[in-house]
């Protein structure tokens, strides 16, 4: 079993216009940089992107927004991208802003084979409009929950630290975030990794995402790993 592809271009080769993509990352941390660049180069349009954030104006998903390749974003926070906010306010871009926990759990539901989940996030707010609600007893008190559906994504594109030829993945630090759950949820999952090793080198105890979820894997190149807010403290 060898799931390797040569590079990002090969990995995204059959992604077409109007598809729904999941993209891992939190801000610019843990984003699939090579695949995003390959999608820009490929020029696919009309994309629906499920991603927590929209990158910054000139990096991450911001690159796909600049080239107007995105029809719809499903995200929880887009504050770092002025172009996104502009396209949103002007109506050029369709946006579903959803609670971050709901975003994460709808990915999880897809990956865990559950058609829907119940969450208290958004009850009583505009997020609840048009949604089914149900009451459950929680710690002796009746509480209202929203029903939210599992996502259905054509592709999940994730970034990991290490991977092997079977598609097993290990993540690093806070670059993990949405990547493992999106990896489970895509109909086809593409993983770009910093280190790619033969099956057998990674300790099975350390695997974060078992290879069954991953269809294509490649070693990425030239990671910029940009920092959005470089904050430091002084040595005394």
């Amino acid at each position, binding site marked *: 079993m060898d799931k390797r592809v040569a590079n990002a271009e090969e990995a995204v080769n059959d992604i077409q216009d109007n598809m729904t993509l999941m993209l891992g990352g*939190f*801000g*610019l*941390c*843990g984003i699939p940089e090579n695949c995003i660049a390959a999608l820009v180069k490929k020029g696919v349009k009309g994309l629906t992107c499920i991603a*927590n954030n929209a990158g910054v104006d000139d990096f991450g998903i911001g690159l796909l927004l600049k080239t107007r390749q995105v029809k719809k974003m499903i*995200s*929880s*926070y*887009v*504050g*770092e991208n002025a172009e996104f*906010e502009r396209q*949103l*306010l002007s109506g050029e871009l369709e946006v579903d*802003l*959803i*609670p*971050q*926990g*709901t*975003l*994460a*759990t709808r*990915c*999880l539901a897809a990956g865990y084979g559950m058609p829907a989940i119940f*969450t*208290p*996030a*958004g*009850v*009583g*707010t*505009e*997020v609840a409009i048009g949604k089914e609600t149900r009451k459950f007893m929680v*710690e002796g008190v009746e509480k209202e929950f929203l029903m939210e559906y599992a996502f259905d994504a054509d592709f999940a594109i994730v970034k990991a*630290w290490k991977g092997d030829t079977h598609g097993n993945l290990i*993540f*690093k*630090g*806070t*670059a*993990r*975030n*949405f*990547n*493992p*759950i999106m990896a489970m949820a895509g109909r086809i999952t593409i993983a770009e990794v910093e280190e790619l090793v033969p099956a057998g080198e990674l300790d099975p105890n350390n695997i*974060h995402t078992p290879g069954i979820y991953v269809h294509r894997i490649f070693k990425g190149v030239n990671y910029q*790993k*940009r*920092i*959005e*807010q*470089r*904050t*430091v*403290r*002084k*040595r005394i």
Partner: protein
Amino acid sequence: MLDKIGIAKRIAKEIKNNHYVNLGIGIPTLVANYIPKGMNVVLQSENGLLGMGPFPFEGEEDPDLVNAGKQTITTVSGSAFFDSAMSFGMIRARKVDLTILGAMEVADNGDIANWKIPGKMVKGMGGAMDLVASAKHIIVAMQHVNKEGESKLLKKCDLPLTGISCVKKIVTELAVLDITPRGFQLLERAPGVSIEQIKNATAGRLIIEGEIPEMIID
């Protein structure tokens, strides 16, 4: 009157030993600097970290180590990384003891609005709705009045809501207040601030019972 640091210092006094705490962006992040020495507190970062530490020294920034505000951070010993589903799972399942976040408006029934100004600021709610819907204890750090002097502690929020009937305690530049079934209950005055000032600044139902002491801020 308190400045942002004063508000952060006063909120830090609410943290208990061995608490797991989530700090929102803005003033809440400053609270980390004023946790009493010797107190054991584990800071949860919604993007997948328990055991958030201070900012790194210059030159030691790690792009794979950021907090909910995308700032570079470090970890403390005993920390753990996990994915976003687990992160919000532990929030929803009430494993996090205390949530501290900011607000634009709070109503006297505990409704909170802190994510959207229609037509002007639509950045998104991030993790705020999950946090306010689930947290065991919620403390809000906010300005009592806006730049025009209008109250932000209201009978009813005008801005789109983040959550309903969820805020328990508020610390502003003027006061510390609890939210009770009868409305805002004044607990403490900021140094140099009078009861009159607080009354004039509060549009929602305000209960003042007994002697209201001045805050003690180190």
